[in-house]
């Protein structure tokens, strides 16, 4: 009824290949962008910004990075947090050691360093696939935090390897309120999401999916398998590296290398799986689900226990929160194994016909 493209004719291939070929989608996207850039900064509290929205955006970026590698190029990786660590530590060192270094350039160089490390750990993907490759990327996951802790130079010889991110200053303007940090992170994430979308609908994106779906056929078409996989590792690690830098600089302020542990890698992998493997939108949905749902549940459970005068102990509510959260993940995966993005896609297909499904 409302979501219908009747009467919207496409007369050029350019129009058919546009980002949002359907008018309703374009308006919805504009609305979301307007809310994110204007509405949220105006009406959210500092708590919402620092505790919810900034981490949501940072994790979206990281799961976007992992989704490029795992969802599009089909290479399973458990080293996401390690690549984030590389990005964070590298950005910190570029700021520390090069006077007058613009912070945005440090983020980019941090991502670039992560990309190089990603290529290095991607080399085994020539010979091994699937679970075995995942185990090979575990090497990165254990080696990199260990190296950063062990070699004091990386953290400027601080105690226990903690790095304290420098303040964010852009063009002499210090960004220190949560609102400013949120806007900075939002700009970076929105831009990088757009670039990722462009990549996956261009030649390299098709090459990634070709390697994922049928590598022998891809090779016969003339796609260089190793190069395609390594580009996927590089781009993915670049995204994770920038996410790591933002994690340190805009979210936590100071991080220790052990914070980038296997737990974090798994968290991001779950975001990709729950959100939708091989979908840009899915990365955001998954990150939203995993970062925001526990807090939503917490609020609901607390409100519920007050309403019914249950007087639950704090330990019990947090336990229940975990239980419900786990059940929800399983529920969504049973309902739609391809993730929330696919669920949304099916909803859209249904909506096109609703209410007359003939």
């Amino acid at each position: 009824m409302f979501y219908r493209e009747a009467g919207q004719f496409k007369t050029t291939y350019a129009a058919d290949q546009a980002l949002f070929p359907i008018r309703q989608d374009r308006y919805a996207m504009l609305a979301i962008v307007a809310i994110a850039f204007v509405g949220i900064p105006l009406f959210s509290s500092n708590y919402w910004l620092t505790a919810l929205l900034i981490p949501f955006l940072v994790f979206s970026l990281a799961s976007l990075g992992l989704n490029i590698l795992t969802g599009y190029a089909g290479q399973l990786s458990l080293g996401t947090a390690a690549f984030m660590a590389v990005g964070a530590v590298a950005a910190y060192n570029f700021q520390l050691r090069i006077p007058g270094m613009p912070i945005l350039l440090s983020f980019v160089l941090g991502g670039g360093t992560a990309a190089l490390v990603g290529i290095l750990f991607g080399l085994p993907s020539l010979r091994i696939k699937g679970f075995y490759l995942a185990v090979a990327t575990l090497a990165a996951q254990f080696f990199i935090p260990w190296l950063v802790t062990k070699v004091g130079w990386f953290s400027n010889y601080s105690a226990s390897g903690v790095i304290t991110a420098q303040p964010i200053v852009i063009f002499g303007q210090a960004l220190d309120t949560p609102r400013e940090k949120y806007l900075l992170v939002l700009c970076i994430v929105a831009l990088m999401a757009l670039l990722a979308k462009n990549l996956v609908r261009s030649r390299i994106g098709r090459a990634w999916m070709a390697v994922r779906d049928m590598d022998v056929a891809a090779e016969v078409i003339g796609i260089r398998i190793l190069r395609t996989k390594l580009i996927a590792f590089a781009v993915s690690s670049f995204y994770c590296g920038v996410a790591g830098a933002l994690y340190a600089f805009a979210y936590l302020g100071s991080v220790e290398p052990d914070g980038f542990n296997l737990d974090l890698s798994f968290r991001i992998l779950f975001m990709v799986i729950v959100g939708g493997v091989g979908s840009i939108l899915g990365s955001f949905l998954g990150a939203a689900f995993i970062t925001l749902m526990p807090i939503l549940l917490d609020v609901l459970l607390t409100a519920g226990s007050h309403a019914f005068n249950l007087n639950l102990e704090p330990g019990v509510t947090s336990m229940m929160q975990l239980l419900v959260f786990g059940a929800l993940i399983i529920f969504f995966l049973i309902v739609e194994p391809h993730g929330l993005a696919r669920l949304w896609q099916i909803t859209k297909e249904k909506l096109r016909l609703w209410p007359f499904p003939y």
Partner: protein
Amino acid sequence: MSPPAGHVMLSVDNIALSFGGVRALSDVSFDVREGEIRAIIGPNGAGKSSMLNVINGVYHPQQGDVSFRGEMRRRMDPHRAAAQGIARTFQNIALFKGMTVLDNIMTGRNLKMRCNLLEQAIYIGRNRREEIAHREKVEEIIDFLQIEHIRKTPVGRLPYGLQKRVELARALAAEPTLLLLDEPMAGMNVEEKQDMCRFILDVNDEFGTTIVLIEHDMGVVMDICDRIVVLDYGRKIGDGTPDEIRSNKVVIDAYLGVSH
């Protein structure tokens, strides 16, 4: 159909290929002339698919040479074969299941695209022009093979016959000079076979593409092919026009059989 007068485009000489102790091909030689439709036939396990894999560089023969358009090569990798204009389809459909028909065929034009990673990330400008130019080419092929109605469908959802056709479209998208078809009509019903025959003949006719195909349906092979190679246990036991093959005693014993 008269044998074409074109000169030799591809010749394989004394090819020997073995996997461990198993000899897949021994001392096989034949040539393919420009513009012809050449069939490779033979019983199961005769080494037909291995031969195609040698031609486009997936397998490396221990012995022998392949020369394509005057260029001799010992070790070939699939990427170079593709760059030289050799495309192929597979016996078991090897489409990219998660992608739409359109994206599958667009992937076939991968080697013809020039934009670098940065240009692709920015998209507008050169990359968009390139995407649209290639889209136009792909649409011509879609039109040619009559698959307009399914262009936005993920290939995993298509029936078998259409998947075969999409795979042919993907191979054609590379604008090959030599097209290798591994059992293009396997598992099809009579009508689908007729359609596929028509497409193969049209490709040969309109684009001038030289075609090497493997097929088990002798009716089809005898009707559409200019010359036939017969393999048995990795050896060549016959080579010639359909009429010559039909009357070849060795081929009849090994493969064709006689009606009782």
